[in-house]
Each structure stands twice: as structure tokens, then as C-alpha cells.
């Protein structure tokens, strides 16, 4: 059965300061699937991800979500629906409990603990100082903070690249468990082994152009 489209791109380009960062990108991202964006450094991967929550705006072409132009949605509602987790976690509040509630202050303690369990931090005290957490724990807390707003799509920009091996493995395990849920995940990664393991579909960017697409075992870039 064909999967429904979440995002579709129609000849999308982005020109910034005279540089063509993305050029002629046309494809789609399936609902409930994990799509990996790969390519060399500077190929436009992160910019592509930032188009999906409107942190960037295409200068040409159209992006649609559920068939509607992305810019026809209320931008704040869109960003709750399509949540971006950055490469380096930034803690916004002093304590773990406050951090999960930063965008949803009405969450109960039980709901916060449930979210912490989803990101494999089940025994974390809510009054623990965020500054005392390891990089991996901070990244998982950032994931819990994003999950708290109830997104349908998670955008993950190199979520483990700033972490040591041990922390990266813990974050990886959480991402693996999240992709089995009903979430649509779009993942930018340079770790090709992880992409093969996690992704249902791979888009390969090169100098801002989409040069390959397909299953992780089909694209030549991963062979």
C-alpha cells in the first residue's frame, strides 16, 4: 500500500546572498516513515530541513504539507506540528521539569515523567539542574521538550554528531524507538550506518541538487 504524502516539494530552490543553496528539488516525504537526508558537508541538508518548519523560505517553487502550501498554515501551529531538534542541545531553563514544560506549562508531573520515559530518562528527578546533565542526556531532554508539544513530524538535524560515542548510542536508541511510533521523522545525518538502519527512504543532496533517492539499500551513495 502506498504511504500518504506528508510533504511534497515542487521545484524548490533557495538562493541566499547570491548563492544557490538548494536548486530544483522535487520529491515527497511519506507520512509515518523515516526519511534521511544525506550528502557531503555544504550540500544543503540542514537548509532543506529548516525549510520544513519555515526557518527558511524557498525563493522558488512550492512546499506543501498535506496538500496545502506550507505558508498557508499559521507558522506557530506549524512549528508545533513539525518540530525541529537542533544539532547541539540548548537548555532553556534551569531544571529538568521546567525544560519539558517550557512550551507546555500546563503539563502534569505524570505527563512530564511519561515524556522522560519515552526518551529513556525514566529516573530523572524533575528538579535536577539541566546544567549537570551530560551531552547525551541534554539531547534526549531536548527531544522530550519537542515531543511535549505533540508533533506529527520530528526534524532531527545531526542529533548525535556533537556527542561522544556512549552518549550518541543512548540518543540513537531513543530515535530508534521513536521511529517505530506513528511519527514522521526527517533525519539529517552524516552517519551512513545509522541511515541504513533507520531510514525507509534516502534523499541524497549534492551542491543543493537532489541527485539520488530511494531505499537505503538502493542508493549508490550508501554502497
Amino acid at each position, binding site marked *: 500500500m502506498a504511504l500518504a504524502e506528508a510533504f511534497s516539494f515542487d521545484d524548490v530552490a533557495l538562493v541566499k546572498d547570491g548563492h544557490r543553496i538548494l536548486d530544483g528539488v522535487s520529491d515527497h516525504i511519506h507520512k509515518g516513515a523515516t526519511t534521511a537526508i544525506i550528502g557531503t558537508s555544504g550540500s544543503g541538508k540542514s537548509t532543506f530541513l529548516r525549510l520544513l*518548519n*519555515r*526557518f*527558511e*523560505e524557498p525563493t522558488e517553487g512550492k512546499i506543501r504539507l498535506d496538500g496545502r502550501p506550507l*505558508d498557508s498554515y499559521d*507558522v*506557530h*501551529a506549524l*512549528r*508545533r506540528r513539525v*518540530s*525541529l*531538534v*537542533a544539532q*547541539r542541545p*540548548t537548555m*532553556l531553563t534551569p531544571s529538568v521539569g521546567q525544560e519539558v514544560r*517550557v*512550551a507546555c506549562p500546563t503539563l502534569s508531573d505524570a505527563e512530564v515523567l511519561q515524556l522522560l520515559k519515552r526518551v529513556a530518562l525514566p529516573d530523572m528527578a524533575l528538579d535536577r539542574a539541566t546544567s549537570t546533565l551530560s551531552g547525551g542526556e541534554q539531547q534526549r531532554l*531536548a527531544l522530550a*521538550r*519537542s515531543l511535549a*508539544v505533540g508533533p506529527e513530524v520530528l526534524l532531527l538535524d545531526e542529533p548525535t554528531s556533537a556527542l561522544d560515542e556512549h552518549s550518541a548510542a543512548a540518543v540513537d536508541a531513543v530515535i530508534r524507538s521513536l521511529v517505530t511510533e506513528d511519527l514522521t521523522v526527517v533525519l539529517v545525518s552524516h552517519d551512513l550506518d545509522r541511515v541504513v538502519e533507520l531510514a525507509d527512504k534516502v534523499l541524497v543532496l549534492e551542491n543543493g541538487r537532489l541527485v539520488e533517492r530511494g531505499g537505503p539499500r538502493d542508493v549508490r551513495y550508501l554502497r
Partner: protein
Amino acid sequence: MNPSPQIPDWLGVAASVLLVGIAVVASSWARLGLTRDLVWAALRAFVQLLAVGALLTILFDRAGLLGALAWVTGMVVIAGFVAAGRSPELPRRRPTAWVGVGAGVATTLGVLLVLGVIEPTPSVVVPVGGMVVSGSMTATNLTMRRLADIAHQQRPDIEARLALGMTGGEAMTPHLRQGVKTALLPAIDSTKVVGLIALPGAMTGLILAGVEPIVAIRYQIVVMYMLLAAAAVSAIVAAHLTRRALFDDADRLYRVTPPA
């Protein structure tokens, strides 16, 4: 004390040139290479003050309240240019600075005039307005500078909040408070130590003009409170306008890079 102003005559002013000479000799002796700057600064001060003195004499004699307010408006415009010049990377910086300084000045001068605390005559409105403009300019300048630095340094923090669906205003709220606090500290500190570290300008001027110190402090108290209010209003208005200017209509934070 009877009013017996000890104001130097032109001969006295000429004698004070000796002080510039001392500064020049000292800087030459220390090989600071500042002789030209010192002489140029002294000359500029002389010419500027002469021109302002002549203009104010005409203004006080003939302009009336409207002329005085026009003069104060001119000062606001110049102060806006100066405040905006410190944050060249900010979008819409000049309108922000003009409205920020103007709001502080209009509020405080308006209250003082409406309540009859100061006389609505040019010889009062212009010097008092000058003090308020200066205080508002400093607060506006510090607020805009601090927020420009925050928009650059705290970009990951602000974008993390935006990514959770917050508005630009919500994402900037913690930083706005910090920016306004930073801008208000000089006004609060100088109010705290007034009279302890140095005698402030308005009071010094009145005492030099022969007014009893116990009378002069009444004016100074009004001036200090006026400067606090002006700084607070200017900082808050400038902070809100800067915040609005930092985001586009899709609540994306503009990329601002501080000047090298």
C-alpha cells in the same frame, strides 16, 4: 547665601586656555601623540559652545514654548542617530532609536509640564529637555546594543524556542528583560550614589549661580527621578521595537552580525 554668580568673564576664559596648554605639554612630555587631538577638541568645544550659547540666547528671548519644544525635538533626532549608530547591524534601527528616545522624553517632560513641576519657558524646557534626551539616549543605546548582541550570541536559544512554536515575542522575553535591566543599571546606580561620589550637574550649576544647596537639591531630586523615568520608558520602548524588528512576518530571527 545671596545670589552672587561667580561667572568668569572673557578674560577668565582666555586665562583658562593655560589649562589646555598644560594638557598639551603633559601629553608631549609623555609622548602620547595626542597634541593635535587635544588642541582640536579644545577648539571644537569653544566654537560649539559659542554657537549654542548664541542660539540659546536668541531662543530664550524670542522662541516661546513651541520653539523650545522644537529645539528638544531636534535633540531627539540627533540622539536617535547617535543611539542607532552603535548598533548598525539591527534592522529598522533609526526609527527604533527615535521612537525610544522620543517616548522617554515626551513622557517625562510631559508629566513635569502638566504637573507644573517645571516652568513652561524655553530657559527651563531646553536645559531640562537636554538632560532627559541625554539619559534617554544612553538607555536606548544600551538596550539596542545589548539586544543586538543577544540576537547574535543567543541565536540557538531563541531558535530552540521558536522551533517549539513560540512567537518571536515569547522567544525573546527572557532576553528582553536582561536587555532592559542592563540598560537601566547606569541610571539606577547614579541615582543611588547621587551626592556621595560627585555633585551632579544641575545642582552644581545652581550652587555656582548662588542658590542655597538645600534649595538646589530640590531641583536635583526632580532631575534624578526624571532621568530614571526617561531611562525606563526609553529602554522598554526601544526593547519592544527592537524585538519586533528582529523577526520577519514568519517569526524568523534575522541574522545579525556585530560589527568587527
